[in-house]
């Protein structure tokens, strides 16, 4: 009998010793490959004003698939993403409901994924303290997923996410935002969209989005809401 439990816990302990996101992702891929997984993504879930690619922490995805997924904004119609937002429990992609007739976009995502050896998958939702939503999503063709292996994948995914998140979060010293970054976050706090902020500050929307991404990276924030909350809490902007 496979010792799923011992291997998973040893894997989790091993994660702490890894010193780069790349090494952590390699270790995760090696660990998850035993269950038949071939692709992996650790990502926050975007709100309507965010782009999927801004939210990705780390991934091992076929580059072509990432290009298509982002260009066609598949995250907005992906039934797996939809269910993930409402779920605390992990689930197989096949458990995400959609109506193939009424939701052709959903059907399209699910079908095209199979072109990239992502016929089946398993997703672990991650909900943080400040309402932040993220997930670890794993895909493959021939999966070894059963009632004993699922809990192992579940636990490994949660710890893998946390390890990478911590490595990407900058130390407190590096949190200093530029005046422009603070300005952009302040307008975001007032509910302005990236486009509107661009209009107000007379810069391109693209530039606004870059400021937001940099600010979030410096603050270690997963979403704009989180960034706003941190800034208010640390008196970087007016509430």
């Amino acid at each position, binding site marked *: 009998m496979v010792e799923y439990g011992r291997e998973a816990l040893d894997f989790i302990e091993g994660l702490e010793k890894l010193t780069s996101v790349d090494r952590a992702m390699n270790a995760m891929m090696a660990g998850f490959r035993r269950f038949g997984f071939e692709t992996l993504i650790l990502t926050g879930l975007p709100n309507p004003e965010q782009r999927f690619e801004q939210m990705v922490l780390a991934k091992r995805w076929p580059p072509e698939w990432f290009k298509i997924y982002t260009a066609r904004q598949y995250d907005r119609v992906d039934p797996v993403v939809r269910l993930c937002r409402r779920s605390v429990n992990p689930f197989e992609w096949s458990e995400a409901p959609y109506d193939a007739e009424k939701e052709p976009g959903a059907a399209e995502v699910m079908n095209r994924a199979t072109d990239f050896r992502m016929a089946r998958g398993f997703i672990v939702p991650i909900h943080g*303290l400040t309402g932040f939503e993220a997930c670890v999503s794993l895909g493959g063709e021939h999966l070894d997923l059963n009632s004993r292996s699922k809990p192992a994948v579940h636990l490994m995914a949660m710890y893998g996410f946390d390890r990478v998140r911590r490595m990407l979060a900058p130390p407190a010293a590096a949190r200093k935002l530029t005046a422009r970054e603070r300005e952009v976050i302040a307008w975001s706090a007032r509910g302005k969209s990236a486009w509107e902020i661009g209009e107000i500050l007379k810069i391109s929307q693209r530039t606004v989005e870059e400021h937001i991404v940099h600010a979030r990276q410096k603050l270690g924030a997963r979403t704009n809401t989180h960034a706003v909350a941190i800034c208010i809490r640390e008196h970087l902007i007016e509430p």
Partner: protein
Amino acid sequence: MIHVISAANRFLYEDVIERHFRLRHEIFVGERGWKTLARPDGREVDAYDNIDTVYALAMEGDRIVGGHRLYPTTRTTMVAEVFPRLASVRGVPSDPMIWEWSRFFVVKDRRDGKLNLELLAAVQELCLAEGITHVSAVMETWWLPRFQEAGFVVHPLGLPALIENQWTMAALIEISADTLAHIKSLGQITGSVLLRRGPQHSIVDRALMARRPATSNAA
């Protein structure tokens, strides 16, 4: 403030302890639907509520707004008695410096605010002061990312399992000054979150006394 209630000073809090049993019933049975805890007298009390239990109860004036409890692993614990399979990989903890942490609750109108973080700070501050090195916990898996975000170092004792349709796991959480500092920074908490009224005793000493003596083979 979060009141620390133990064997030494519980005589000051008998009414509070009673009221919190009813509040636990409302929240754990009523809201969370943990039907196995339901009791006809409307008090959520179990085998780990007794003279050895240490309660941390957050109060606003007379009102109980949240809390949790600690129980010595030198006595029989929930993990040992009810959920041993959740600790099947690393084993069930039994040590005077490891206490079982359970029944974490916050009243509805105080959820997801500062009180949450104060309660998390409370377990760290209390255990640090008492020389407790770890707390063990049985928790729904969705707690894990929340603990991690709060800076807790959480070591799983085994794989999660479905318990009453919720993914649940057992873990050991490290007690450290670093973790306490992290939560206090997150919650903008300055100073102590604990209030200790009346006579106090060493919590760990009581756990040492509770350790079962080795069975003697003397005829």
